[in-house]
């Protein structure tokens, strides 16, 4: 994606599920895995809007083995629902 909202998150997993969760995450829309720190997985989500990003992030809680989803960074200067005419 060359535009839109970028967020980075730390996904916490039950230790025995870390690898399985890391394998499943890239199947979610806009999600990329960038690294694993113990049982924590570093991801980015790219989407059109903040709402979409939030929905995707919230949906990660439904993956078996995910015990927490923490937002770290969110940039939304390209979200047309917030800034129709840009920033």
């Amino acid at each position: 994606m060359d535009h839109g909202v970028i967020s980075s998150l730390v996904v916490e997993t039950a230790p025995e599920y870390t690898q399985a969760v890391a394998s499943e995450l890239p199947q979610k829309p806009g999600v990329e895995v960038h690294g694993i720190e113990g049982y924590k997985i570093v991801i980015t989500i790219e989407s059109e809007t903040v709402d979409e990003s939030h929905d995707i992030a919230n949906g990660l809680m439904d993956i078996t083995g995910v015990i927490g989803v923490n937002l770290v960074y969110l940039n939304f200067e390209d979200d047309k629902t917030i800034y129709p005419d840009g920033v």
Partner: protein
Amino acid sequence: MSISRRNFVKSAAIAMATAAAAGSVASMTGCAPKVNEPINGDSVKKTLAVCRFCGCGCGVIVETLRGKVVSVYGDPENDSNRGLNCVKGYYLSKILYAEDRLTKPLIREDNSLKGTDEGFREATWTEALDLVASKLRETWKADKSRLAYWGSGQQPILEGYATSKFWKAGLRSNNIDPNARLCMASAVVGFMNVFQTDEPAGCYADIDHADVFITWGANMAEAHPMLYSRVMTRKISNPKVKHYDVSTLGTRTGATADKVILFGNNGDLAITNCIANYLIKNKTYDKRFVEAHLQFKKGTENIGNADNDGYDKSEIGQKVDATESITFEEYAKRLEPYTWEYASKISGTPVEDIKELYELFANPDIKILSFWTMGVNQHNRGTWMNHNLHNIHLLSGHYCKPGDTGFSLTGQPSACGTAREVGTFCHRLPADLVVANPQHRRYTEAVWNLPENYLEDIATPGFHTTKMFRELSNGNIDFLWSANNNWAQSMSNLTRFLGRGAEDKRGIFDAFIVVSEVYPTISTKYANVVLPSAMWIEREGAFGNGERRTAVFEKAVDPPGDAMWDMWQLMEVAKRVLQDEKIGQEDAFDLLFGQWYDKDAADFKQESQREVCKSMWEEYRTFSNPDLNPRAAAINSDKDEKFGAKLKMEAKQLAPYEEYIYQHGMTWPVREIDGKWYPTKWRFAYGDQKEGYDQIGIEKYGDKGLAGDASFYKSADHKPSVVFRPWEPPAEVPDDEYPFVFCTGRLLEHWHTGTMTRRVPALDNALPEALLDMNPLDMEALGIKDGDRVKLVSRWGEVEITASSAGRTQPPQKYLFAPFFAEETLINLVQQEMYCPLSKEPDYKKTCVRVEKLQG
């Protein structure tokens, strides 16, 4: 954005998340994105902020471009959250931008339409302020018992400070109380009774050291998500760490706990007394700790319930605070009836579960961290239950050691900083001082540069929150101003307080009501004037969170339309009301606020909000730095021996304003060593100040070398009071007519009454409706299916709501839960208005109701 900027932003995002996952603050600091280079000639500006939502008080950094917020990220240097935010962080900035932001003052022209959004016209600030001030002045001059201000634990610290100063010194009225009365008052009275200081001894870092977590009436997973995430991290890092959830119903917190212990019927009081009983009986209490640190008391018992407007002044109501000293042996004797079997019979909790909890406290080799919040505080014996939790931690010596203590969680971002520390309560003055104490009044007069004895007029506390709304409904309040809250949805017994009951009270319709707000709410529907406010980072402010951390949020963007800073609103009202008034020989307004506000210019004297806040903070922090004011210092040290006691105001020492920006927030007391300021993370625990221990406080006031390296130097005789508090029943017990126990509370997506979060479509879609959570067996017995509409009926009122067996909580049989965020449901129409007789905090957890299936 351009490809190069996009690549930059994404790599910064990854670096930040990687550092946050690694959990090293030092490594994260270097990773903060350096995005200050110009973009098409404009710079991205970074400002410091604190999350606007719950009591966790997470730090965030806000980035703006061309006056608009473009990104937010968790502040890696704020020790409360270390770079992480919960998913509500997605909407921190979006809450600024919903379409119906209030941008013009509104004046109600048609009082017959009160209770609706209709009947208002737009007005200028001058018109609105003239009207508000004339009504307030008229009431003040006629009968000042008939005016009131209802504030908030969401009001920033200095706005609370200035409001309190205006109300207490300008109007000399104690009819000011915050919505923190609805959430933290029982914790406050508990702390004051036990320790004579209102504060948790521990900090969030305790989570990283605990071996056992016990949540008591606290759904942390939904209400304190960042802290709960830290609990989970601790559990995963050490599989031996266990979590017990003590609750009246199943929650997301319970779902991830190792064990859920359910109780009912105020059984928490019996369970804690049972634990204390066997700690003593089996000699498993911490003898050294008890001998070194504790004194024992008993208090007034059989205190009934505040079921009538005259309760506080009744014979029993006036005795509820009384205590008297008893011996340890007498205390033990009072506990004896609390056998396993008796506690089990009262609570409905199996004996083996109570024994399991007892075994934890009887074990000196583990670190126990208890968390509690609304289930304990919103309780008709909320103060007593706070006592009992302190009691079992103190008796067992599991107190004020890293990872080993009791911790009362707060519900709002500045419940501690503003309501409690500033003292925007009807009985308080700033910095733990109370109106009823002459030495405290003298000290406040000194800091505020008032003539001696000027505050004699406010020696008696004013109306606490429920009393305020009771008197409003009775027609005894003529003027009410509220800000940073939504009383028409969050108060108990709304049937009465909104004038909808059978005995329809005209008060709310006849009183002149002013609401400072950012969005239309149900409270603005009852307003005569609505003042549009700047919100969150549209002005500078500071919050004080649940771990004693003071943190500043900087102004990042301008407010929309004509919305204005609440501080400006206050100054403009105050200058009008106090026009031609004198304090001594001086102009009243100028004496109180002239340092900051030029009434003729209608503007602040300082060049920026930063400078206003910095200057006002210097006065506020004089309360905790008496050496800054010789008159105050003499009262603090009782130089003339007039009072017979020192005040120890430095015990809650605050730093200069910029330090909070420079250090991204600090937990008080902060101490200066060689020109550098250090926070205190572990109160009353001796150790190196630079490591976060209370070294300087103990060296100044306390005693070194006592059991547990603790010294409770704020307490009378340096000994906290273990007060025996018996089991007494809930205000209502189920019967044939009202067989269910109903509880309300917060859920993850919606912050309190939803005035911000429900304007975010994604959050509203995630949790669009307040459901009535029921046990499937109860539904079956009543012939109710998921999705059926039902009527919930209590002695107080009724609401219609959708029933569900698949909601967020899992109540046991005869228990119900529904959240209070939904205005269309207005669940508090059914809430009882009983409160804890000591703290005056309403019980939102145990109203008895029946459920009727609606046809069709």
